[in-house]
């Protein structure tokens, strides 16, 4: 299919039922993670008496605001395992869901601009290969061949000294991913309930038995949080803290252009990441705003900073016009790795802390979280990501190690 042709906008693909009095599992948050979790609970574990409660509309938070990069080239074993499992699920997702998600394995280049970048990148390539993740080191000329619009000259402030390349990485269309999961989950009997804000939890003797919502009390055998940047607000209502800080993360798109950018380029050092969406917008992002914030917007100097990096790397972008900028609320942990597992409240589970990288994890996180909820035990994929690691000290420190600083 021509990259710029999309099928017609789909009709509504899921039911909008009234909430029932009770469910076996209530998932709080109908973003990518919540919807995927519901789908895998129903399809892999036969648990279909499930509600996904959403304060706004489905996939209207970070799922609608991310830059859709999918890759699994993380440094540490635990991260490589869950992100690689996720990537494998992405590779079969359209077939599994019977729905286009426009998963395009156009590869991801992570550029190195300093000697230390080069050392770290080569180390990460070796670690990736040991973990069965496709990765290669490419020199500046190979970078130029993979992405001809990059300036690999040595007359810029931070010349390109090479990069790592993961050919199986890529992008997908975020809305369609959410719709695909919602459609299949709904078909399997899951109730997706929008405009239903959770305002409290019913806890009896240390065990959760339901949720209070803007549409009344809903009893629940188990409650699973999937609320990204708002997880702290919810966990406070349940009486415990989660080790996350919520920050604005901004992204932007240009006007539509001819298809000029064949891959995904990320640069940790000058700090920008860029791909070109199917329709032709250049999609860019960078780091989080420094301060805590729930405002879904950030400060403009962060945009200026990433644009200056982008224009130096891609001189052709200097004539592009900025169309739109926005922000999401990302949930950042101290070790830049997610939190998934049981919570201090019996029957209640947490999935948060995915920070700036949650989109790529949607299938893998949903898969592992569904297992955790169904069996009350973590899956092998998320055993290392429990809250207990902050007590034991067994952190999974992906800060800077995971190819881009969070």
């Amino acid at each position: 299919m021509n990259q710029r042709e999309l099928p017609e906008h789909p009709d509504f693909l899921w039911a909008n039922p009234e909430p029932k009095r009770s469910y076996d599992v209530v998932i709080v948050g109908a973003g990518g993670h919540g919807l995927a979790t519901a789908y895998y609970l129903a399809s892999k574990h036969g648990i279909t008496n499930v509600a996904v409660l959403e304060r706004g509309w489905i996939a209207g938070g970070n799922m609608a605001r991310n830059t859709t990069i999918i890759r699994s080239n993380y440094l540490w074993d635990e991260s490589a395992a869950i992100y690689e499992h996720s990537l494998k699920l992405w590779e079969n997702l359209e077939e599994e869901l019977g729905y286009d998600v426009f998963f395009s394995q156009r590869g991801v280049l992570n550029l190195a601009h300093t000697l230390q970048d080069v050392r770290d990148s080569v180390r990460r390539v070796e670690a990736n290969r040991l973990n069965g993740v496709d990765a290669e080191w490419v020199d500046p000329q190979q970078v130029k061949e993979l992405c001809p619009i990059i300036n690999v000259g040595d007359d810029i402030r931070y010349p390109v000294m090479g990069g790592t390349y993961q050919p199986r990485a890529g992008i997908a269309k975020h809305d369609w991913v959410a719709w695909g999961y919602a459609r299949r989950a709904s078909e399997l009997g899951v109730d997706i309930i929008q405009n239903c804000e959770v305002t409290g939890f019913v806890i009896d003797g240390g065990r959760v038995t339901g949720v209070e919502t803007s549409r009344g009390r809903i009893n629940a055998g188990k409650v699973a949080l999937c609320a990204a940047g708002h997880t702290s607000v919810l966990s406070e209502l349940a009486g415990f803290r989660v080790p996350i800080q919520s920050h604005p993360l901004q992204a932007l798109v240009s006007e539509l252009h001819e298809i000029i950018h064949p891959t995904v380029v990320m640069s940790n050092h000058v700090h920008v990441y860029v791909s070109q969406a199917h329709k032709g917008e250049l999609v860019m992002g960078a780091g989080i705003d420094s301060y805590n914030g729930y405002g879904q917007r950030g400060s403009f100097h962060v945009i200026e900073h990433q644009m200056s990096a982008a224009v130096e790397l891609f001189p052709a972008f200097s004539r592009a016009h900025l169309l739109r900028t926005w922000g999401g609320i990302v949930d950042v942990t101290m070790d830049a790795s997610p939190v998934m597992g049981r919570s201090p409240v019996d029957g209640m589970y947490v999935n948060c802390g995915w920070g700036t990288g949650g989109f790529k994890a949607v299938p893998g996180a949903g898969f592992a979280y569904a297992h955790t909820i169904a069996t009350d035990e973590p899956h092998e994929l998320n055993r290392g990501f429990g809250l207990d690691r902050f007590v034991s000290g067994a952190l999974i420190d992906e800060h800077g190690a995971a190819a881009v600083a969070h």
Partner: protein
Amino acid sequence: MLIIDCPNCGPRPETEYGYGGQAHVAYPEDPHALTDEEWAQYLFYRDNPKGDYAERWVHSAGCRKWFNAVRDTRTYEISAVYRTGETRSETQKGA
């Protein structure tokens, strides 16, 4: 961009400042007495409210001093700034 009112230098753009996270997190009085769970709370857990937040900023490109601010994390509006060592209530009457 935020305009932050440094207690020493007055209002300056956010790019002159560094962010220091939650204010008033004291080093444990008796570190040896802490359990692993308490250490985890001290090292890795911070409040993350949706609303007023007492936080630290450093005026890196100005007086280079740390100070505290109370900022609403929904609107980003700063309602008070006060020097390190002062308490929030001394500065922010009735807030």
